[in-house]
């Protein structure tokens, strides 16, 4: 079955025809060419496909595209403004919050959601916020540091 949906993606309004079984991840990647959310498990266990849906972190592999009619979605492509990187992106670069990089988009999205809720999170809160984002390189310590520094810089 086909569905007509309208939603805001990275600040831009879009309309699209999607199939019932299509996931949000698939539509973002294949139809809209937004490849920052990554395919990692398709079962919501790894967080590589995280996006913000109305300000909340979701695994886009677990959301049907037909459900996002009217929603506001943010991917990493929408983080930087014009020519300036988002403070989180800058901080991840400066503090080695990235190794192979495959989990990086999901980490940034979870971090963004956290900073939207709490302007200056404790280490414990950051660990908790990232628990659904797997990083096989084990870069968690530097990712946490990157988020801490970014949150301080924002103030």
């Amino acid at each position, binding site marked *: 079955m086909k569905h007509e949906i309208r939603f805001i993606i990275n600040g831009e309004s879009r309309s699209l025809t999607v199939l019932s079984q299509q996931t949000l991840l698939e539509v973002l*990647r*294949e139809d809209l*060419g*937004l*490849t*920052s959310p*990554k*395919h*990692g*498990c*398709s*079962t919501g*266990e*790894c967080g*590589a496909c995280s996006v913000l849906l109305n300000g909340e972190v979701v695994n886009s592999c677990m959301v049907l595209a037909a459900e996002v009619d009217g929603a506001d979605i943010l*991917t*990493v*492509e929408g*983080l*930087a403004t014009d020519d300036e*990187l988002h403070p989180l*992106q800058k901080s*991840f*670069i*400066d503090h*080695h919050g*990235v*190794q*192979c*990089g*495959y*989990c*990086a*988009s999901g980490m*940034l999205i979870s971090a963004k959601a956290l900073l939207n809720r709490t302007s200056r999170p404790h280490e414990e809160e*950051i*660990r*908790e916020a*990232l*628990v*659904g*984002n*797997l*990083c*096989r*390189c*084990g*870069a*968690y*310590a*530097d990712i*946490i540091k990157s988020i801490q520094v970014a949150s301080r810089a924002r103030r």
Partner: protein
Amino acid sequence: MISRKPHVIGKPFPLIEAQRKLTGVTCYAGDEKINPDMLHARILFSERPRARFWLRNLDAARNHPGVVALLTGRDVDGRMGHTVADRKLLAVDEALYAGQPLAVIAAETPEIAAEALALIQVDYEDLPATLSIEESLSPGAPAVHPDFMSYRGAEKLNAEPERNIAHALTFVRGDVDQGFAEADVILERTYTAAHLQHAPMETHGGVAQRQPDGSVTMWMHVQAPFLQRSIIAGALGMSPEKIRIITGCVGGSFGGKVFVSIEALLAAIALHTDGRPVRLLLTREEEFKGVFMAPAMRAHIKMGAKQDGRITAIEATYDWDVGASVDAAIFHLQAVTLAGTGPYAIPNVSVRTNAVYTNLLPAAPLRGLGVAQVHWAIEQHVAELAEILNMTALNLRQWNLVKGGDHLFPNFVMHASGLESCGVLAVDAIGWRPETPRPAEENAADASVRPGVGRGMALGWSPIILSDQCGSSVTIRFDRERLCDVVVDGVDIGQGLYAFVTQVISFELNIPVEWITVEPTDTANYAPDWEASYHNLLWSMGHALLRATGEMKKQILSYVAKVWGEPISNLDIVDGEVVSYASRRKLPLLSLLEEGMGEEKSPPSFSVTATYRPSNVDGSIDSLLQSFASTAYAAEVQVNPETGDLTILQLAAAADVGHALNPESVRAQIKGAMIQSVSFTLLEEMVFENGVPISTDFMKYPIATTADMPLQLHPIVVEVPQRSGPYGARDLSHHVQVGAAPAIANAIYRAVGVRIRDLPITAQRIYDALQEKRARESAVR
């Protein structure tokens, strides 16, 4: 005044790819060539460990609308292997393990490919299989490869196929019988380590396209494109120049994307389609059950020592379950044999390493090359021995430690190393002054240590070996269009290779970083028979870079020297300008490249290729051994004596990297390896049921999350220069894994008095050991 710009070696240097990775621009396997015309491949995997099989309804699958090609082992019957061709491209009639590919399909959409695959009915007739080291080595076990001796390359291995020994290496020094005769104490133990998974976040995949000339171009995110080119060519009976592999960033490899797993099938199916690109991207379940596992280990260690703490002899047997293929694990065997004594200079040594075939998924080395598992055994063994001798384990280690000048192997004399410093610094970082071992009950009474809390440590040494026939080759081009363009044969798998290349060139040529572009790794840039090193790249690529930059600098300076009429020894490059220390003349390199100089009308361009390839002196086990990297771990843990639950309060890791060329990057690598090691030690085990993997997602095969991090991490960089290494540096990525597991196990012992000798250390294992200990103690009372 002419002054050289600040040293960029040993200073923080940004990872070149970081910005692209953090803006979502970096292309990974699943991002390649997204276009609606693309075809999609799926693989049918065997679901039985060893069975005769029949594929029914193949015509229905072939004729399913939207299917473009379907291949079985009857269509392409090739054998794969680098050293020994002990794997089939696709099984024919008999499947050797669950996860072996039986058919591959290409279709218009992923859904159609899946539907067509589901139409194929596979009938199995189970055959006798062997599913563990014990089974494989027991008399009368079915031979996994009865026809082994007919395989290409079989003669290169030391195999006993009828006993399921795929390859064996031995190292003998002195006379162990005499060594044990001299010993006052002899300790014998068995240790095991589970099968693991590489589990990169990016699953295997890529895109392949048949070209009009019959060649195939592959966009793949693999660690060793040159090795893959050679293996794929061999499997498909093609010449290597017909296969071109272009490699982008790799979303994690950890050894799992070195050897060919599904890549040859992608090439095969692309060659049987109409020239459209074909994408293959494994699901997470397929990644777990159809690619590679990391070998499981069973180690038997016998060690003898004098009462004064001198270790007189070691006899160690390391058996590795390599599944149904040894080809990828050969290098691993060499590493574990060289590391087999642990970092101790023991006069009488017998180390034997066996690769054992089973009817399980083929094994490929995991980051650490098995050396971490060797230390799991040795470093617990030494701690237990120390307790028997009533010494501190640190003292026993120090007594027997390998030292600079020790002639350890026929071609290898040990260099200066930071082994001892690593140990002392790691222990110090967790605030521990090791005292004489006492039973855990007394520990509990110690005011400085809380009940259920214990500290332990372990040392580590890992050989840096270069692969036979492999080298590193670098081309630097300097011209007006591209400024400084660099072609390398190594791949950035997240370790920061491209940053390293940029850093060295920027330093050696003294030019701005912004001028330098490192091209994506592409086999087409090299001769068809070139085999590139794929690990220990700091060493091999570092040497190639130093040669290339030296030659490039000479080319540029002699060009200018000739025009200026000065000896080349007057000239230097400083901050992007050629300068003469004698005549004080200056010429910006950019204007040289733009306008040329002197009589010469056209601007010059420069190009240099340099290669580093170690010589294999005599094919002996140590002839490609470059150095040993040392590490130490110290852990402070808390164990709940009722439940066996474990918390790592502190974990310290010290690594001697020779010279930290990019210190923050080194620390990041150490911290990452610490977390990964905790994951391997406490959480990970690939579980099979009747030979079929059942750990096929992150629920059943958990890897460390932020919730599993030690409460405090102490990464420590030790720098004892390696004279033969680039800038005195040594590689670190494999080595920083070594020592975590035994340090944690030793800490558990000191916390609650139980030894866990099987990896992973689960709460259940600790609980069971505690129960057993209580039962033993009450029996004594």
